[in-house]
């Protein structure tokens, strides 16, 4: 270790092993929360996106309304409604759901999942709708039924068109998860806020956490670039 870093660490009162552990726990919470909401949100979104492209307006209408409502209002309000609202549902405090939703983690997970699912539904829907007609005709000519067409032709082809927009949504979700700290979850931002109020050192507390988020963001960007390269292998120039 270079001397100046060692010296800086020795003189430092803020970045002790204790606070680093707090940041680490915060990072684990953030990653846990974001990862779970993204995975559940993606599964829900694939289903809803298929329903959204169904011709019957009684099927696609409610899905449209859901995405419209969740994309038209701030995530913070959705979080508040779910976090404060769940306790007010009559009778919930006697059921086992209360054991789960009493912890702030689960209302936040629910709000984030519903939010990301709404955005992702629209992304996937856009990709499904723009499937070239020839691909579907070819699949029909091969005698594939609807289910097989979806699974073998439409969804894989849509995934290629959706991956770029989806990577933006993932990064957006990581950044949006910072608001979990307002409902008393100690995520990365929550840890930074605690450390700020203990030492009254805004620059140390928040710049460090900004760097943590930046590192996470760049890891995601890198991973998605790899994934895009993999999915769009067939479009690479031959002489490359």
């Amino acid at each position, binding site marked *: 270790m270079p001397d100046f870093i060692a010296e800086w660490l020795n003189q430092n009162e803020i970045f002790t092993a204790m606070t680093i552990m707090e940041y680490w726990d915060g990072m684990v919470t953030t990653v846990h929360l974001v990862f779970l909401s993204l995975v559940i949100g993606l599964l829900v979104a694939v289903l809803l996106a298929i329903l959204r492209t169904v011709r019957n307006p009684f099927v696609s209408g409610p899905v449209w309304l859901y995405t419209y*409502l969740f994309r*038209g*209002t*701030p*995530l*913070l*309000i*959705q979080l*508040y*409604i779910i976090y*404060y*609202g769940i306790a*007010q549902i009559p009778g919930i405090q006697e059921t086992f759901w209360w054991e789960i939703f009493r912890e702030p983690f689960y209302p936040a997970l629910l709000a984030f999942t519903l939010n990301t699912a709404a955005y992702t539904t629209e992304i996937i829907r856009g990709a499904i709708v723009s499937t070239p007609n020839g691909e579907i005709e070819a699949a029909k000519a091969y005698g594939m039924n609807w289910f097989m067409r979806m699974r073998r032709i439409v969804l894989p082809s849509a995934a290629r068109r959706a991956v770029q927009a989806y990577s933006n949504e993932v*990064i957006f979700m*990581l*950044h*949006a*998860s*910072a*608001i979990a*700290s*307002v409902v008393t979850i100690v995520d990365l*931002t929550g840890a*930074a*806020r605690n450390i*700020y109020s203990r030492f*009254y050192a*805004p*620059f140390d507390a*928040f*710049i460090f*956490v*900004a760097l943590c*988020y*930046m590192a996470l*963001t*760049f890891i995601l960007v890198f991973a998605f670039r790899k994934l895009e390269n993999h999915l769009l292998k067939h479009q690479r120039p031959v002489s490359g």
Partner: protein
Amino acid sequence: MLDLKGYGPALMEGAIVTIELAFLSLALSVALGLIGASAKLSQSRVAKGIATTYTTLIRGVPDLVMMLLFYYGGQVAVNMLSDYIWEAYEIDFFFQFDPFISGVVTIGLIFGAYMTETFRGAFLAVEKGQIEAARAYGFTRLHTFRRIMLPQMLRHALPGLGNNWQVLLKTTALVSIIGLTDMVRVAEEAAKAERMPFHFFIPVAAVYLALTAGSELFIKWLDKRANVGVVQGS
């Protein structure tokens, strides 16, 4: 009718604060976006480097963290500056960093980065022949920018600009976290005091929905106007 338990006027005022905040941040972000895009497209390596660092930094950090940094850090910086000025010149200089200004600055800075990317793409979409023609007419660079680039670029920038505006509008809700009495803050206090979360948050959500839906229509109308002279391929 909806009974807001006497919080109606406060919510109304909060809504006006939200709208003011949104428009001021939009103005700042458009200005920063134009500067950023010009810097990114300029010949100067330094300008390009600064603009690229700016957009990369902003896109890596959550808006809330940025806001907390500016709000709490801004106050500490002002305190330090005022101490320094007092010691050096014996001038009493101080101001309280209020949440509204921090909100406008943060949101403006964040969306300035997104606007930079939008405007950069839009400037690139203007045909090169147009600039060459302007040069041939003897336009100065500033003149070319104002008379040729800016009006033609707006058509290409509009969809991105509209998107950014929609996201910006929703981001304004975050300023309630650093203590601005906007409608989200009022609703939160009312919901806690009256123990009626749905009763106060759903109307606020509806106001946001009305704002985003209204802007969507307005942007569509603008887009139609801006593309009046363009033949759309079928």
